[in-house]
């Protein structure tokens, strides 16, 4: 459970979830009342392959501290192959961000099925903590968007 301590840094986490597996997995963790921090805000997309690298950069620009992308497990994509493309795209994008010196723990891809409510919650807890440790995103932010 999240302790709303003002002193503690509260990262903003944007989670892109595919409609068929991960969004349903997120719903399941809700149905099972498995807590994860309010820091996580989910955006629904039809498939993980709908997520353009530009969306991820946009999130960082606007003040997100971490971005996580969730999709069906490889081989289980509702659209048969979408997540395979996602995997290559995100591997290369994250590698590039790492190459530019952006903290690698700010980005993540996780495969969460519609049955893995517990995994969804655990992943979000873990990821939020990892980003919290990194502190605010400074290396990839737009100063005009910085919150006062």
């Amino acid at each position, binding site marked *: 459970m999240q302790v709303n301590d003002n002193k503690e840094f509260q990262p903003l986490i944007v989670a892109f979830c595919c409609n068929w597996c991960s969004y349903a997995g997120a719903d399941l963790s809700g149905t099972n009342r498995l807590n994860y921090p309010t820091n996580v805000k989910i955006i629904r997309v039809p498939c993980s392959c709908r997520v353009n690298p530009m969306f991820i950069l946009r999130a960082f620009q606007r003040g997100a501290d971490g971005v996580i992308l969730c999709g069906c497990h490889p081989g289980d994509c509702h659209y048969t192959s979408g997540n395979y493309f996602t995997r290559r795209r995100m*591997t*290369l994008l994250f590698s590039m961000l*790492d190459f*530019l010196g952006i903290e690698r723990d700010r980005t993540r*891809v996780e495969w969460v099925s519609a049955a893995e409510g517990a995994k969804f919650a655990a992943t979000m807890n873990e990821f939020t903590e990892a980003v919290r440790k990194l502190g605010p995103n400074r290396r990839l932010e737009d100063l005009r968007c910085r919150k006062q």
Partner: protein
Amino acid sequence: MQEAMINRAKQLLADGSVDRVIGWKRGEFVYDITPAVFTSAEELDADFVYDDFTAANVSKYLVKESKKEGKILAFLKPCDTYSFNQLIKEHRIVRENIYVIGIPGGPKLDAERIKANGITGILGAKNDNGTLIIDTVYGEEKMPYYEALSVKCLNCKSKKHVVYDELIGEDGDILDSNRFDMVEKLENMTAQERYDFWREQLSKCIRCNACRNVCPACTCEKCVFDNPDSGVENKAATDSFEENMFHIIRAFHVAGRCTDCGECSRVCPQNIPLHLLNRKFIKDINSLYGDYQAGEDTTSRAPLNDYKQDDCEASIVHERGVE
């Protein structure tokens, strides 16, 4: 070489095989050489240049030129043929309208690097056994030949023409280029060092768009940076994020399509080593998905439009290299 090229171009124009010729002509200075289209023997005799300063890749110009009426003759250096093939693969140029003559490539000289040695007023230059003898308005100057070479030629990947209708001179081989050495060096730095390195480099960017405009992979009908609906449109970088974003998106857009021709770094007025971003993608693609050279052929699937069921997970980024 220049002579042979002009003669052959004149022949082809005369017998009606081609209607235009794309080559190069001199600008204000001897080293200021830009692509140009010639339509007559007279124009060729007057202006056609091919020398050690002629580095520009004319492939991209063919996107527009090949769609015009009639046939055009293009002289392509080995590195240019890769870009040419890639453009064919993406249906951006009309192959039937182009007659390709493969010509020997570099190494080419970089006037900026000569000037960096304090040598100005350049009138000409030639290599004499590793020493570059430069004729200037102030007399003769010397410098090590190697230090005057264009960065894009230092790690030349191939002397082989992957496409041509005829060749002038001999064809070469694919080279062992060590072109990933610098990428590797950066990979072995800490994240903070890398961040500092790129901040220093990218903060020099003045958003002149030269890299984009010269890039043979950047031929979009409308660039996302010019499109108000794309969400990333911007004309001038107002802060560090936008400097980064422009270059990340540009590199990502050409990932798997970049042939590593090196034009981006060559034309950058701020000398930002932009090719390192592209090479990082190429290196990743090679090591994660198998060797792939964009433009080597016209049929293979681009790595980002392809997948294998047992591809590595994105978490590999977290597991390797230096944090």
